[in-house]
Structures are given as structure tokens and as C-alpha cells.
């Protein structure tokens, strides 16, 4: 039988990984809410489980598996398909909440991906944070401000489970449902914000303007008129009837160049600027119209999904 041949950094690292899996694994649960095999989820509070929206195919008859092997019935507390996050409410308070990491993830940082797709114990894989990117369009009508990529293997059923650091603190939520099947992780800070909002409102409030636009270059003359260097703006090619944009006096042919003082030159920036807090607020929108710079106050509406 092998004897421990004294402390070496490899055994120390090994022990640290085991401890991280044990501590984060206690908050990694099974989410059984789809026809295929179950996926994973993260205990957000004693009775709330955060998971990937795409693994929640049914809103009733959801079962959550605990590390003990017991199953608890759960219902959908809220979902945000745009960021591929869903929050489940357990019928009783049972889960030990996961702890999010406080700092931001760094490229090269050692991480573990955890999942519990079966009742037969925790599963894990080791890797590093390979890249940090964003914002990206999620392909589900949303915009993800930041995302993480890892080379840790995400095994089947790992969607909804945590990416954790070597102390077992959650740095992200893993999902293969955001970017056409390629796996990425939603940073914990973003995931926790969304979870908080879902716990309070059941959905994520997003601002609504009611325009169709396309990015265009600004000519040197237009930039002179604007009084600043800005390479592009958003040409309005459609304004919906009865929309906040129409109510605020925006016209087809206007080029949006700034929202509330923040320059805007592509559609993603426009979407990102229409945050939930702006709903109902008159927001100054700067446009170039017939060679003149005009600022129209527009009362932002709420997007219905």
C-alpha cells in the first residue's frame, strides 16, 4: 500500500481540489425538468435553485436531487431565456447555499466544473479560465455583458452547474445553451444579479424602444456637426406604431448617436443601454436628423417577451 511520502505541492493541490469539490458539491444539485437525462443546478438560497433556462423544459413536476440522494419537488420561480437562467423554488428549505467568488475571474485561473446529473455522486473536471469575453448576443434574444470560457470538460448534464475556484467559491454558471451548443460560463456576479431579480419579480425587466435600426458610418461632416469623433451611429429603418420611440418623436431616417450621453454605434450597445432601471424614465436620445443634432426625450417602455 502506498505511504504518503511527505508533503509535496502536488498532494497539497490534490487535497485543495478535493476540499473544493466537497464544499461546492454540497450546493450542486440535480435538476430534473426535461425529457432527456437531468442537468445540474446551484443552490442560490435555502429554498432557491439557480439553473440554466434551457434545461427547464417543463414548468410543473420539477424534481431537484440533493447530495443526500433525496428528491424535493420544485416549481419555477422565474426565468430569463435571454441569459439562459432560471430560478426554481423548492417545496421545503433544504439546500446549503453556494458562495459566489467576490473578485472577477482571471484568465489562467484554475477552476473546476461541477455537475450532479445523477443521484450517484458529484462529478467534476479540472481546467483553467481560458478566456473572458463579451458582450455577445446569446441567440436567445438576449445580450450577455460578459462570459467565461474554460477548457475544463463540461460532461453531459453539467449545464446549470457551477464553475468554481480552488476554494470552492462559484466563479460562473456553466451552460451549453447560450452560444449554439458551445459551452460557456455566465460570470457569478451576473448570474447572482439575475437570480436576485428573478426571485423578486419572476422575470428580468428590460427596456423597450420599438425601433428597427442598422449601423451606419458617420461622415466627417456629420462628426463635425456632432462636435466629437464617432465612427458610427444607428440609422432608424423602422419605428413601431404606438411605441415609446414614436411617442418620443423619433423618425425613420434619424441616426441615433447617443443615449443619455453615452455614444451608441451598434445594435448591441443600444440593447445594452436599455436596462430595466430606465423603464418609465424619460431618457434623452441624441440623433442626427437632416444634418442637425437633435436630442429627443423618450420615455422607455418595458419589453414583453
Amino acid at each position, binding site marked *: 500500500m502506498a505511504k504518503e511520502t511527505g508533503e509535496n505541492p502536488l498532494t497539497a493541490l490534490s487535497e485543495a481540489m*478535493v476540499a473544493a469539490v466537497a464544499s461546492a458539491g454540497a450546493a450542486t444539485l440535480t435538476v430534473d425538468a426535461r425529457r432527456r437525462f437531468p442537468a445540474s443546478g446551484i443552490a442560490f438560497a435555502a429554498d432557491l435553485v439557480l439553473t440554466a433556462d434551457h434545461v427547464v423544459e417543463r414548468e410543473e413536476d420539477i424534481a431537484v436531487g440533493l447530495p443526500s440522494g433525496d428528491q424535493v419537488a420544485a416549481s419555477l420561480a422565474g426565468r430569463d431565456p435571454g441569459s439562459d437562467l432560471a430560478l426554481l423554488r423548492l417545496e421545503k428549505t433544504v439546500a446549503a447555499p453556494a458562495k459566489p467568488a467576490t473578485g472577477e475571474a482571471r484568465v489562467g485561473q484554475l477552476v473546476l466544473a461541477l455537475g450532479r446529473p445523477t443521484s450517484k455522486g458529484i462529478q467534476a473536471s479540472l481546467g483553467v479560465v481560458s478566456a473572458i469575453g463579451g458582450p455577445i448576443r446569446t441567440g436567445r434574444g438576449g445580450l450577455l455583458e460578459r462570459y467565461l470560457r474554460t477548457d475544463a470538460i463540461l460532461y453531459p448534464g453539467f449545464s446549470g452547474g457551477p464553475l468554481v475556484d480552488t476554494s470552492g467559491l462559484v466563479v460562473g454558471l456553466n451552460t451549453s445553451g447560450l452560444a449554439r451548443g458551445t459551452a460557456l460560463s455566465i460570470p457569478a456576479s451576473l448570474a447572482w444579479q439575475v437570480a436576485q431579480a428573478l426571485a423578486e419579480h419572476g422575470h428580468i425587466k428590460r427596456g423597450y424602444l420599438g425601433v428597427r435600426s442598422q449601423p451606419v458610418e458617420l461622415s466627417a461632416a456629420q462628426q463635425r456637426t456632432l462636435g466629437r469623433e464617432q465612427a458610427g451611429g444607428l440609422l432608424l429603418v423602422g419605428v413601431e406604431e404606438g411605441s415609446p420611440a414614436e411617442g418620443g418623436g423619433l423618425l425613420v431616417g434619424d441616426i441615433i448617436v447617443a443615449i443619455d450621453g453615452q455614444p451608441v454605434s451598434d445594435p448591441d450597445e443600444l440593447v445594452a443601454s436599455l436596462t430595466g432601471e430606465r423603464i418609465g424614465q424619460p431618457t434623452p436620445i441624441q440623433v442626427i436628423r437632416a444634418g442637425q443634432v437633435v436630442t429627443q426625450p423618450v420615455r422607455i417602455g418595458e419589453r414583453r417577451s
Partner: protein
Amino acid sequence: MTASMILSAWFTDSLDEVVRRVQRSLAVVQDGRRGGGAGVVWRPGGYIVTNYHVVAHIRPQRVVLGERSLPVRLVAQEPAFDLALLQADDPNLPVALVADTHDLRVGQIVLAVGHPWGQRGAVSMGIISSLGEAVTIRRPPGWRGNGWRRSLSAGQTESVPIIRTDAALAPGNSGGPLVNAVGGVIGINTLIVGGDQGVAIPSQVVNAFVDQRLPRPVRESFV
């Protein structure tokens, strides 16, 4: 040198030491064609453990340890657990450090050592991804084939504990050791699932197989 540079140098030295320790007891089991698989010197007396599937369709004549090529004979095989026991013609081969595998934990650092794609003594690192069981079929004597594959032919199903790892495995790792952070062998690498998950048979299963099949020392009895 900064503290982190000292740590990473120490880390590398430790890895190097562990790998060297493992490679001393690592054999190439040649099948005469593609380079075959790996094997581990498990017990004194030249006893080498490998996978059954490495030797299933050949009768290995020789193994290579370091620079030496040695004649070898097949002592025992167990298709159900995909294990085979060979004996090399040298009783003094360096025996691997075999770890106790009753208290394995998910997250433990592991190294797989073998000959992936024929690259001798190559090392890959990962962790224990999960601990589970696999269903295997114990075949009647004389049955030839792979013990893992389900088929309608006769046999008794049986479950065997397995170690799953994210350490990269490839053909040529079969029969080679999966070791822990001190170089203790925790299992024999056996299978690749879904392209990215390795499966190893834990040392406790290998020990039971070897104990059962090794010739027992003759005991004198009182009459």
C-alpha cells in the same frame, strides 16, 4: 525568485519525481503490429498487470521495460474486468507503488501514464471526475471477446467499481497506470467514453484479481 516562481518550480520537480517513479514500473505490451498497450509491474516475481483487451487477440511474447525487452507469458485473464496478468522472465523487475483505493475522492489530482498513439511513457494530468460502477458480464470459460460489450450470449452480469477521469487518454494508454499525487497506482486505465472521459479499474479490483490468480506459496501442513 518570487514565491510563485519557487512554488511552480517545486511543483514541476514534484511532478517529475512522481512521473519517474511511475515510469520505472511501466511496461510496453507489444502486439507485434500497432505497438499494443501498457502494463504495470504489480507484484514481485515479474508479474505485470495489463488490460485483457490488450492481449485478447494476441499472445504477447515480449514486454519492454526501459531499454530491456523481456520474454513474457500469460498467467491469467479476466475479460469481465478487462484484466490480464503476465509474468516476465525477470523476478526482480521494479514493482509499482500500489495505493489503497478504498478512500478515493472526486477532485483528487491524477496522472495517466502510458503510450498514447505509441508515444512511450507519455503523461496526462487531470482529476478523479466521478466514482461509480459499471455493469460487466462474466463470460463462461472459453468465451473470447471484449468483456465490456453487451451481447446476447450467455453470461452473468456483475457490477464493478470504476474511476472516471478527465485526464486525456488515447489508444496505447490501455493497461497503463492511473496514479495519485504521490505516484501510487490507483487504477488501470481501460476505456475511453464519449471521446473525453477515461475509465480506470481501481487497484482494489486489480489486487483481488491478482490475489486470486497468483500461485499461492506452498504451506507445510502437520500430519
